[in-house]
């Protein structure tokens, strides 16, 4: 009997990687999934934060895909290593701060290392030529294969027939004739194939697999880097970019104001790392101060916060300021008028 070959499939949670893995499974190959967590992934997170999202059924799409396919899934934390990809992408950014091409190269490189450590034979991705303007083009396909070091061990089952033969095809581990030649932005062939396999409840991410493709998120991240004078971030920073209204009140600090109760509760968890403000005389949101503040800055922050509270038309509003050691004091301020909020503050 011939030896059963083993492949690892990059699983994002979307339809294409689901289909790619399935197509190879159909050919008798043992497939396991690998999912990389950069910190910016759309998965999880926001579910836990906003109250209105809490009611929706939560699921991690990569785990769901693995379960549909009856395969193991390895989730790999690449938060730290990913920073270098995001800070200095050799191939630049996409429409926003998404370094898609470098990101893909990095993930395939990690998968290549993984197959070497775990005795697997080749790598599968759900890439389709022309599907994404930055990373999935005819000319980027060989770049990913080459720069990741995976070379001919990288198989893209959904468009393999438009690409040169890879080792799994040459060696007969998979039959090229049963692979596909999808191309372009159309989703029709994928949807037809999904139907054939009986998948109907798959996730359909709008932009891409992560927050970096989101314009507003990218603006906030760029602002963070500008304010710090360098490209850097910690996990807490990138989590907080997902919640609240962010107002850059001066180059030295910004104010993050919760938009609803769920965000407020989530932000409470950060009160020992950031100075926080809340209105006490009137109901209102809570706010965190990110940066270094003077007394004058705090006055400004309190007036802005009061503007977003139920006391916005009151003559004065009491705002409690809490430092990171839980010492509190109270400021009595006049809420800002609607025209005093400078539009440029809002990120």
């Amino acid at each position: 009997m011939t030896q059963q070959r083993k492949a690892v499939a990059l699983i994002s949670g979307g339809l294409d990687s689901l289909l790619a893995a399935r197509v190879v499974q159909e050919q008798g190959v043992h497939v396991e999934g690998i999912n990389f967590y950069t910190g910016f992934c759309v998965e999880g997170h926001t579910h836990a934060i906003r109250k209105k999202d809490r009611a929706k059924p939560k699921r991690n799409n990569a785990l769901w895909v693995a379960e549909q396919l009856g395969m193991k899934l390895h989730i790999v934390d690449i938060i730290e290593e990913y920073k270098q990809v995001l800070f200095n992408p050799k191939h630049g950014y996409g429409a926003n701060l998404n370094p898609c091409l470098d990101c893909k190269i990095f993930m395939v490189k990690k998968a290549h290392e993984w197959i070497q450590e775990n005795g697997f034979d080749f790598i599968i991705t759900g890439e389709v030529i022309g599907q994404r303007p930055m990373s999935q083009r005819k000319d980027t396909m060989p770049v990913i294969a080459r720069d990741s070091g995976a070379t001919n061990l990288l198989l893209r089952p959904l468009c393999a027939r438009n690409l040169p033969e890879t080792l799994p095809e040459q060696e007969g581990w998979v039959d090229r004739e049963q692979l596909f030649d999808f191309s372009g932005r159309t989703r029709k062939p994928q949807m037809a194939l999904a139907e054939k396999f009986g998948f109907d409840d798959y996730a359909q991410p709008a932009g891409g697999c992560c927050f970096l493709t989101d314009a507003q998120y990218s603006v906030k991240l760029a602002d963070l880097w500008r304010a710090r004078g360098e490209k850097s971030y910690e996990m807490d920073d990138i989590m907080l970019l997902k919640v609240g209204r962010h107002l850059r009140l001066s180059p030295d600090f910004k104010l993050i104001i919760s938009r609803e109760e769920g965000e407020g509760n989530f932000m409470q968890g950060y009160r020992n790392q950031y100075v926080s403000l809340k209105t006490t005389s009137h109901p209102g949101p809570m706010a965190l101060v990110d940066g270094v503040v003077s007394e004058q800055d705090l006055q400004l922050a309190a007036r802005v916060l009061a503007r977003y509270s139920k006391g916005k038309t009151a003559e004065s509003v009491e705002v409690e300021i809490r430092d990171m050691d839980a010492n509190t004091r109270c400021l009595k301020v006049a809420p800002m008028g609607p025209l005093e909020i400078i539009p440029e503050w809002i990120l």
Partner: protein
Amino acid sequence: MSRMVVDCRRMLCPMPVIKVQNQAVKMAPGEELEAVCTDPGALNDIPAWSRINGHEVLETRTEGAEYIVVIRVGDS
């Protein structure tokens, strides 16, 4: 038998899953692992991950603002 506990408080999914996964690989089949989480998503994600990877979910429960999942490590 002793039970390992991993503290996943304040972590957002999928970090609790990653933490459980990285601990489970170091444990012997049959040993028990308890994850204490604050992201309710963990109540779905850790069991899903366990089913896929051949571990048995012994218990899931909510204690106030904490969500606890106990698994028995499988032999894969």
